[in-house]
């Protein structure tokens, strides 16, 4: 009885050790993966910073103005005039541009000439 119990315990210890070793290995792997990802994140963040800096350097009003001045023979841009600024409410209603189809009197002069009686 005691011997079997011993064998069982020994087996349990061996299995336990193997499991722990495996876990440890997995944890180590995960840790290195985490570190790798962390480094990737840092690199991404750094490149985002770089790109943002570049974006804002390229979008500087001074630079854009310079480019517009240089290529204006092609772009044909003009400074905004004050009277070009208007709010949507101030715009006049767009005129209806629906011309009667088929001549000025498409209904044969019948419909619409007299009042409709209901």
């Amino acid at each position: 009885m005691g011997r079997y119990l011993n064998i069982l315990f020994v087996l349990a210890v061996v299995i336990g050790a193997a499991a722990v070793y495996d876990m440890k290995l997995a944890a180590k792997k995960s840790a290195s993966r985490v570190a790798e990802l962390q480094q990737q994140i840092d690199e991404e963040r750094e490149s985002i910073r770089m790109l943002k800096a570049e974006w804002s350097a390229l979008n500087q009003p001074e630079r854009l103005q310079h480019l517009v001045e240089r290529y204006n023979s092609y772009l044909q841009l003009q400074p905004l005039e004050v009277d070009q600024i208007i709010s949507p409410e101030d715009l006049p209603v767009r005129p209806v541009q629906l011309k009667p189809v088929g001549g000025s009197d498409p209904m044969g002069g019948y419909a619409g000439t007299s009042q409709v009686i209901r």
Partner: protein
Amino acid sequence: MAITHDTGSILQVRRAKPRPVHGSVSSSAVKSRVYLAMMAFAFVYLMIGGRLVLLAEMDETQSPALMSAQDSVAASRPDLLDRNGEILATDIKTASLYAEPRRVQDVDETVEGLTSVLPDLDAAMVRRRLESRAGFAWLKRELTPDQANQIHNLGLPGIKFLPENKRFYPGGPTAGHIVGSVNVDNQGLTGIEKYIDDEWLADLQKFGFASDRPMEPVRLSVDLRVQHVVRDELVKAMERYQAIAAIGIVLDAKTGEVVAMSSLPDYDPNDRSEALDKNRLNRATGGVYEMGSVFKTFTAAMALDSGKVSINDSFDASRPIRAGGRTINDFHGKNRILSVPEIFIYSSNIGTAKMMLATGIDKQQEFLGRLGFLERPHTELPENAAPLLPPKWSELAAMTISFGHGISVTPMQTAVAAAALVNGGTLLPPTFFPRSSDKVKALGKRVVSEETSRIMRYLFRLNVLSGSGRNADVPGYTVGGKTGTAEKVENGVYVSNKRRNSFLSAFPMDDPRYVVLVVVDEPKPEKGKYGATAGLNAAPTVGAIIRRAAPMLGVMPRFSDGEQPIEINY
């Protein structure tokens, strides 16, 4: 004698002494003692072994110089953004080159390799540093990625890189005086950079919290687009009028936020050597000037606010005033009795001085103090100049001060005081950071009555409609303002051909949102034109700034009925 015989030598005595009798030692006790000794030795050897393993595993301790260098270079700074989130200043990573001279094997080869990539490197200096056998020595800070790569490929032992944060200002000089600059260790030297350091960043870095983590960006009240417009127009004005300097300020009249501030000549904060040039100082807050006729605005406001002068009063400006051995005359005098609005739009020195005398000299001093002209102004920028006041507030001094001579103040102070006069009478200290409406309410200090503010708005507008400020008008934006043509003092005498011209304005005048101040230093007459008064150079510059900046600031143009032609193509 007998005693010595008995005892013999000391050894003999000892030997002769009976040994202390112990109980017989059992074999188990002997064993346990041996085990104890063995364990003690085993323990000691284990300790030594363990320590050896630790030492073998441990990285070599870095030299203290390297560690302190790492601490200082890694210091990152928060990004600075404008009010719309555009980047004004940011950190980018660069590599800096250093050597660990102890590890350098062949000094000659190393020096040769380095100078092949970096031809501007001082070979003698490098050699001296490499031969010093020190633990750490800087060779070159802030390499380009390309240079770093080439040196890396050389594979020189003992030559290493340290990643460093380098401050980058994408706008270059556009907002240089506001954002300021940093030194090679990323510590703020001027502008908002210095302010941030003084406020909290330096403490954070001291305790090691700012080493390399990304920080919340800091948002300023500046609008990069408007800032560019102001600077661009000033550059053009300096060119057109061949001026030696120019200052432009756009201030939010309702909150005190500085939307744009430019002072030419300025510097590119990316180039550190320029920042120290004295000619490139920030004149807007760091320089004091006699503002000239612009000051008549404040005299008029004082006289009207005191109640002793009303808008319908008239003053005799037909004869010069003599006081203290000096004669006060008008630049282009009308030589007649002038009403208060006429004094303002014809910019009469005599009339203004009489208006001041009618109100009282003490009252003037008190009023200018209320507007903040008598003390050093406070802004977030480190460069704030104290005003130059007359040694004695005599009658003559008071009279000259009433039209802007004999007192030197910063342009920023002038703009801030003007904002108070037009916004309904509330003085707000200027700020470079966004300000909430609660804070505006808490900080606001009433300096003149609503009614005085209303009259000042009318006078400003009147001066643009029918006075010296005509050239500043932009249809639709109801610009109002006051010109100032101040003769400069050279060797203690006013020189008539050297002027400092300014135009102090606000728009739209019925409910002013922004105050615009432009100062042009020593403008020459434009080609084909005679004269170089403020109405001919500072005023059109203000007009151009408002024309371009107002749409960006969201100020809608308004025309009275029938005035606005609408061009529409459907």
